[in-house]
């Protein structure tokens, strides 16, 4: 079974971002970049399926600037077999719909049995690309996955939904997007980091794929939302309840 995993290069989750002074966009200059954490979980899940001899090959694809090669190398060091980098020129990043169209082109070329992706990226927080790829590829989908079993030609997926958990069974090929509790990704070992340098990464452009990546949505401005003001410390339970009753009037 061949698995395709898509990953995104994003600002590291420990970094606090700010708008540029003209509020036109988020200031990304000189920030630490990493694999999107949900994508990293998708890579880990693919490697576990390979270690169980369910998967035979793991192909990692990223759509982004030339530097996204670093994130592909990280995935290769974790245990993926080869990479594909679809380079996007210029500063602006492409939208989920265009990413889904690029991934559809890779899906057609690679014919994977399973596509694993993060449920969302921690920059745009859209939570769209997997569902859109599933529609374009006419595949079934399972989002918010917290458990995945491959059973013959099916994927049985437990999903974290608002009310609790839901389990669905999908005919392969299928698209599964990962939630936090699916697994804990491994760290790449030094020997594996060295080995990953020899693994192949194929580079291409969005033009090579024939995908129109022009923007459908313009960001007019970005702002820091108003903070909930820091209030007062109360001495004891009586003062707290008195303030909630008589000052805030919420009990």
């Amino acid at each position, binding site marked *: 079974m061949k698995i395709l995993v898509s990953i995104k290069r994003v600002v590291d989750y420990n970094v606090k971002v700010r708008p540029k002074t003209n509020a036109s966009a*988020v200031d990304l200059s000189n920030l630490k970049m990493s694999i999107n954490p949900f994508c990293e979980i998708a890579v880990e899940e693919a490697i576990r399926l390979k270690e169980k001899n369910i998967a035979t090959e793991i192909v990692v694809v990223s759509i982004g600037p030339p530097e996204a090669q670093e994130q592909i190398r990280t995935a290769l060091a974790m245990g993926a077999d080869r990479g594909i980098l679809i380079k996007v020129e210029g500063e602006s990043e492409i939208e989920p719909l265009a990413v889904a169209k690029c991934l559809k082109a890779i899906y057609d070329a690679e014919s994977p049995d399973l596509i694993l992706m993060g449920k969302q990226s921690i920059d745009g927080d859209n939570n769209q690309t997997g*569902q859109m790829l599933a529609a374009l590829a006419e*595949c*079934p989908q399972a989002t918010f996955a917290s458990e995945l079993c491959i059973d013959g030609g099916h994927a049985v997926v437990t999903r974290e939904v608002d009310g*609790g958990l839901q389990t669905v069974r999908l*005919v392969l090929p299928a698209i599964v997007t990962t939630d936090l509790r699916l697994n804990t990704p491994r760290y790449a070992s030094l020997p594996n980091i060295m080995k990953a340098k020899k693994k192949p990464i194929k580079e291409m452009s969005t033009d090579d794929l024939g995908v129109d990546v022009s923007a*459908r949505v313009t960001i*007019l401005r970005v702002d820091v939302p108003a903070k909930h003001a820091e209030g007062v410390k109360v001495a004891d*339970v009586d003062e707290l309840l008195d303030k909630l009753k008589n000052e805030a009037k919420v009990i």
Partner: protein
Amino acid sequence: MMSILVIAEHDNQNIKEATLHTVTAALALGDNVDILVAGFGCAAAITEATSIKGVVKVYAADHSAYEHQLPENMALLIKEITFGYSHILMSATTTGKNIIPRVAALMDVQPISDVISIESQDTFKRPIYAGNITATVKSHDAVRLITVRATAFDAAAFTDNPALVEVIDKVHDFKKSEFIRDDLAVSERPDLTSAKVVISGGRGMGNSENFKLLERVADKLGGAVGASRAAVDAGLAPNSMQVGQTGKIVAPELYIAVGISGAIQHLAGMKDSKIIVAINKDADAPIFKTADYGLVADLFEVMPEINEKLLKYID
């Protein structure tokens, strides 16, 4: 004239509270709001939808293919009825986020997720970077597909003047996905996302049994009980209770954070609450910077005390 289609979320009996908030967002875009109720044995939900104030027409699709609102079948159904609509809205719940992007791709539209403010027909505000940034975005697509964050809009009211019903007989069955089971948390308490009072526990709760300390107080206040991601990851509470960026977004009148340090991911899920109370024995916990009232104390001493003294204060 703008026509807006809302996709209802329901359990075949009742319309989910979040859908009522989405109808309010739809009414901010235009007066001509229709709603789709697709389910199985869902007559009660259809009837409830007809009584939502502001809804003109209810599309009723009642078939086993729609019983669990699987996104593959829902997307095909929704795409079929979109003609003439300028906007298609669904709440930004796990169900809405599962369905709307799939519909959007079938329509070649870039959807807008998690809208918290409607500025105009084509311009919206939405949080990015875990709520640390608010983006104002303008859509250039002819049709706008939107998921709506329920806490940013009031719930629509009900009316005695029912909307008309149009039955959809056509069945879309994608056949490549199958519902196996739901393991839903059963609670007598109000839904976290719509409760007026939410009391959440963090890793400081120690074990799941100790959440009873919060439940007793929540029950006196008619509130819901939540948990931080740290508490859920430590196995103290189920994932359905998680409040935060990757869990539920809540904005109650009163939010009480107990034994929660206040990670950014947690704040993203509750910072729009009207009044925030923090109870933590660590005076330097970041949660105090976001709290209207902070009490530096051992939760195991003060929660029983609050429970005991509360009756004197509530009417």
